[in-house]
């Protein structure tokens, strides 16, 4: 409890000003884009499209954030997402069309399966049975992602491989397993009810947005109101001090990467149910963006500093800019240039501002003397 009060007492003062700057930046971005492209940017289709795209990326960014708060990094989240998605897709399809799709046919890839579905006019089961199948799919996806996260956690904390290398290795490993399973071809044609999760709306609010809001609330509660959440901050800020104040660092780190994995599992469900397909390497551009958005959101790469609100604002800014670029017609490659420059620029600013602040404080201090 002591730890809790110390940590929570200290943090708001730092993050408040940063979040205010983010809100201002977000408003500026919105206003500039609305002035430049008033008809397109503020159109309801664009706004709705943004509302569909934010969640999947947002949940991945939250996953990255949890790992970075503990002072590490998780480069394997995209690979975890793909692997969990592929296995979940296989489970979903083999449960939905048990009579005519055997596994080998499914794994041969998209063509065989598409033909089967259209020619035989297969109908997925309805009602309660479909609901159970979807539930099973979701739990498989989250379960697999959790296991992947657990392995990362064990490698980082028990065997103590540096997080960059451990997750680099598992990234390659998970990617390889997905490749071995699918041979690189996509799996598609999920039953309609499943797609509701990723592309349905309840009145005007997209379902993924609701899931995203739930995730944000859950992660925020988790970090600010639970013992484990505080422990992650403590380990990230100073692992030796955390150890001496009685925390079991090994346990904390394993659970950190487990949470990261579980969040990647949620992202999987959102992605595969929105695009109606899953494939090795899908979403690989999100990795750079996730690191960018977490750092943009004020999380320190050394661990221990940062909060959910900053990261969520960062996600909105990034998406707004991204869709602005889309409308203006920049190519993907050019967008990569801008993400890279932003990443470098923001880290430079984060480095310079405290220095300037310190110098100013020093000046006023010496003036008083």
């Amino acid at each position, binding site marked *: 409890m002591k730890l809790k009060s110390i940590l929570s007492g200290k943090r708001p003062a730092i993050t408040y000003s940063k979040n205010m700057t983010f809100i201002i930046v977000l408003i500026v971005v919105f206003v500039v884009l609305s002035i430049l492209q008033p008809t397109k940017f503020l159109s309801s289709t664009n706004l709705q499209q943004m509302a569909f795209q934010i969640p999947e990326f947002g949940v991945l960014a939250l996953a990255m954030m949890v790992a970075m708060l503990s002072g590490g990094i998780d480069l394997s989240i995209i690979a975890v997402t793909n692997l969990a998605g592929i296995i979940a897709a296989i489970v979903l399809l083999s449960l939905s069309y048990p009579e005519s799709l055997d596994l080998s046919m499914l794994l041969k890839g998209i063509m065989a399966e598409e033909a089967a579905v259209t020619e035989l006019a297969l109908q997925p089961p309805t009602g309660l049975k479909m609901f159970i199948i979807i539930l099973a799919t979701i739990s498989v996806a989250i379960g697999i992602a959790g296991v992947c996260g657990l392995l990362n956690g064990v*490698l980082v904390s028990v*065997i103590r491989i540096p997080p960059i*290398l451990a997750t680099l290795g598992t990234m390659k490993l998970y990617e390889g397993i997905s490749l071995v399973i699918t041979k690189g071809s996509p799996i598609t044609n999920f039953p309609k009810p499943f797609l509701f999760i990723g592309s349905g709306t309840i009145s005007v609010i997209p379902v993924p947005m609701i899931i995203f809001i739930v995730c944000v609330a859950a992660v925020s509660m988790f970090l600010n109101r639970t013992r484990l959440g505080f422990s992650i901050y403590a380990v990230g800020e100073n692992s030796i001090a955390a150890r001496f104040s009685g925390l079991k660092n090994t346990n904390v780190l394993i659970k950190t990467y487990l949470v990261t994995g579980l969040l990647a599992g949620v992202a999987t469900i959102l992605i595969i149910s929105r695009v109606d397909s899953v494939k090795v390497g899908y979403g690989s551009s999100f990795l750079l963006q996730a690191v960018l958005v977490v750092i943009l959101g004020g999380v320190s790469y050394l661990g221990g500093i940062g909060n959910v609100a900053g990261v969520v604002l960062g996600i909105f800014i990034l998406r707004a800019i991204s869709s602005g670029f889309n409308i203006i017609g920049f190519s993907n490659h050019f967008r990569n240039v801008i993400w890279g420059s932003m990443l470098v620029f923001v880290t430079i600013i984060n480095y310079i501002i405290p220095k300037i602040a310190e110098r100013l404080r020093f000046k006023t201090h010496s003036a008083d003397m």
Partner: protein
Amino acid sequence: MVAYSLIVNSISKSFLTAENMFDILKSSSIMGVMAIGAFIVMLSGGIDISFPAIATVSMYVTVRILERFNGNLFLAFAMASVFGIMFGCVNALLVYYFNIPTLIVTLGTSSIFHGSMLSIARIPHIYTVPGYFFEFSKKYIFSWVNGEGVTIGLSTMTCTMLIIAILTWLLLHYTMLGRGIYAIGGNLEAAKRAGFNIMKIQFFVYSYIGFLSGIASILYVSLVRHVHPFNLMGMLLDVIAAVVLGGASLAGGSGTVLGTMLGVGMIYFIKNSLILMKIPSYWDPVVIGLIIIVSTGINAYRKILGRSGVKIIEA
């Protein structure tokens, strides 16, 4: 490793032949040159993931320019290395002056370099590479013709790699600069107090990897005979795996050139044997991933066992 090669040989007879061995040496030379650069950066306590992007861009620009004007191979190597050094200096600038973690700097610059090339160049593939590029990869230092009429020998590419490896080894062990790289990797603050010029060393380290990426990119063009914007990008993880496998520590300050070369050899050895054992190439990333995890795991775990007395403080 010997045991492994015997097992592979029992499955596929063509593994332990001189032809295959020299082939492995030749094809691993590109990765070897890059790995030496990546090793130097890791030795100094950083990590550079932008070198594939640097190599791709300098390869593209060099070949694009030489395609228009007359040139020769020497000019190609010189130009590519100059471009590489320039990009390396950008990294060094950010790392030294703003104290940003090297992973984040190079993650950013990697997408800046590669992205700018792809968005500026309308056609990023080049198939009309001047002839003198291929001549290089076909030359041998010494060679003989075996019974089936296949030329076997030590390729100039392998030689380039070996020369670079030896020079780097000399540099690391017999110059002040080299000792400085070990020193800042071991403990930056201590190195600073001992009077090493950190700026000079860091600029050297990052321009050296840029320089080597330039060299490696020309080797690549001469072997593959066209310029492809994405192929080299896929080498990143393999190179880092090789360096880590060779015993370099991510924390910096430890590792040897010989270890790195053995790491590269091991990766190619395994890849080659997978092909000869007729295992589908889908398994490649699985194997590479496992190698990274197991080799880093063994290193890390040995450290724990060695220091069990101070385990509490370390955790």
